[in-house]
């Protein structure tokens, strides 16, 4: 049986969903999951729609190591003492391993330099934030020396030279129930309040959402998979979506009428530190064809289905991560009313 430890900061993505998928998906592979946290919050969370018996079954299988992961000596010693095979580091900023048997799974955009010491296996999870006229982003861009997009992340370079067996998974925007990043939630708040949806500039900017369950499936599929060795895969939805289209798709998912959309020029406003809109103001989407061809992975959800799943299991039950904040909205609406009058 392989032993997997997850180094989990207290607030993080639907790690429960990922852990649960890993645990379920890896029942076949016999992996035991340990969550390593400071213990400030419960390590597991019952997923919406998950039965009590399924949840307690999962919960009982998950072990908990309680200690501050900043205490790197402890991390090192406990990791080696326990003989973990796979270390699943959410942050990916400081990965430590003194045992060459470790496999690492990092789950976060990796921006800082990582230290890898004689790692065995590593699965990286990172974003590329590139502004581009030519799209979609493809995995080959990172390794093509002729590509204009050659922005190979430090981590991937490090891994290549380190001799570690690694896989890099690149999502775009993740969504789904218990999403910590208010992407769809931002739109749902507006729809529930019956408010127009303010969208930056033209609204034709194209983005891409991937359901967290589909991402979790990809994780399980790359574990121990030869075809995934030293490969990069984009993992997200098969179709992309315009900003305006996303507002309409959320409305469909939640059974709301088609929303009123207001376009505004962000340069005309000073929102201070507030984020008036949850997406990057650019086209941002990646081709997932490689994962489909090489891994045989395929997203289960299309966008409206996935948003419906997220709405039904989360927002519609009265749960969300961030309170609605329409202060920037009001600034935008006040100005547009002033212009009209």
């Amino acid at each position: 049986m392989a032993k997997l430890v997850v180094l989990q900061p207290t607030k993080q993505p639907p790690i429960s969903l990922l852990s649960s998928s890993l645990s379920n998906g890896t029942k076949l592979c016999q992996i035991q999951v340990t969550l390593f946290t400071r213990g400030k919050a419960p390590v597991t969370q019952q997923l919406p729609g998950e039965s009590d018996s399924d949840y307690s079954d999962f919960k009982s299988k998950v072990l908990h190591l309680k200690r501050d992961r900043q205490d790197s000596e402890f991390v090192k010693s406990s990791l080696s003492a326990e003989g973990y095979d796979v270390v699943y580091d959410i942050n990916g900023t400081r990965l430590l391993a003194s045992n060459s048997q470790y496999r690492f799974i990092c789950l976060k955009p990796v921006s800082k330099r990582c230290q890898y010491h004689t790692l065995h296996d590593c699965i990286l999870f990172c974003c590329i934030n590139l502004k581009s006229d030519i799209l979609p982003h493809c995995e080959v861009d990172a390794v093509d020396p002729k590509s204009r997009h050659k922005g190979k992340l430090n981590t991937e370079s490090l891994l290549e030279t380190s001799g570690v067996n690694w896989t890099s998974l690149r999502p775009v925007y993740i969504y789904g129930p218990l999403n910590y990043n208010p992407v769809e939630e931002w739109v749902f708040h507006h729809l529930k309040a019956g408010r127009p949806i303010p969208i930056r500039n033209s609204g034709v900017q194209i983005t891409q959402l991937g359901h967290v369950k589909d991402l979790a499936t990809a994780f399980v599929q790359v574990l121990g998979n030869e075809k995934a060795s030293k490969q990069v895969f984009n993992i997200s939805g098969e179709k992309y979506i315009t900003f305006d289209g996303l507002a309409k798709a959320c409305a469909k998912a939640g059974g709301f009428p088609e929303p009123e959309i207001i376009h505004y020029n962000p340069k005309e406003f000073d929102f201070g530190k507030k984020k008036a809109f949850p997406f990057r103001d650019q086209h941002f989407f990646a081709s997932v064809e490689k994962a489909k061809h090489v891994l045989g992975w395929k997203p289960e959800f299309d966008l409206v289905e996935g948003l419906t799943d997220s709405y039904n299991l989360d927002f519609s039950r009265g749960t969300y991560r961030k309170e609605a904040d329409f202060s920037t909205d009001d600034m935008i609406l006040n100005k547009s009313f002033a212009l009209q009058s």
Partner: protein
Amino acid sequence: MSCLRWISYGAAAADKKKVFILNTNSGGHAVIGFYFAKELLGSGHEVTIMTVGDEGSDKMKKPPFNRFSEITSAGGKTVWGDPADVGNVVAGATFDVVLDNNGKDLDTVRPVIDWAKSSGVKHFLFISSAGIYKPTDEPPHVEGDVVKADAGHVGVEKYIAEVFGSWAVFRPQYMIGSGNNKDCEEWFFDHKNRPVPIPGSGMQLTNIAHVRDLSSMLTLAVEKPEAASCNIFNCVSNRTVTLDGMARLCAEAAGLPVEIVHYDPKAVGADAKKAFPFRNMHFYAEPRAPKDRLGWEGTTNLQDDLKERFKEYVKIGRDKKPMQFEIDDKILEALKVPVAV
């Protein structure tokens, strides 16, 4: 020794096809037949290319028709005539494969389909158009997506599928390449030292392929008829480019700076169709079926390809040609944008 030679000739002969191309005599698609004929001949197939109309017409003085010696010197046959009379034009010759790169509606293509069927053609290929896809908030257009029921090409596609057991339909967007009958990148090159007026936000996505990619896809369909059979193929490049991006890339290819000016066609009283060579909306298909089913790989690299195109633009003296920009001037005047004299 001679026995072995017989076997190899026999095998080669079985793989070689007799291909008939019915080619339009003008417009953006004319160049497709030209490249396809040459590629087929290069691979050892037999080619007859019929161009609509008369050999002596003025249309034949333009590319690619004025380069048809490249087809005949490679062993291809060139004929001219009326598609409704195709059987007589080819004087009773028979073929394995027919490509109709001419008709946009059933009235025009039906006689060709009927003749092909009755004369024993096994595989019918048709150049349709990605323009028949219904506009969507969820790009890209993927094979199988909803098309506009009243589009002329749709009627043709349906009839082909009814009549032939083995067929393939190709839906292109825009293309560049030497021998093109219709301006594409030239519009941007013509704008050197002038502001480039682009309707809307400039973020609209389009797809511009080098015609060699379209030709290679068609050739694969000829050489892998079972794989191609009964499929729709988006006959486009691997990547999409924004309208602004195309302007930037063309300027880069010409070694010049670029000044892009965005405008609202309605507000300035301009007809965007006449003012600008691309659709004023997202028009973006992806070639997923060609990759999945034919193992096709695109080679278009706009950065490099546009450099080649600019070299030819200069070689033929187009950069020195005096030009009129009536529509542009109207737009720029309405926007009060100065033009250097």
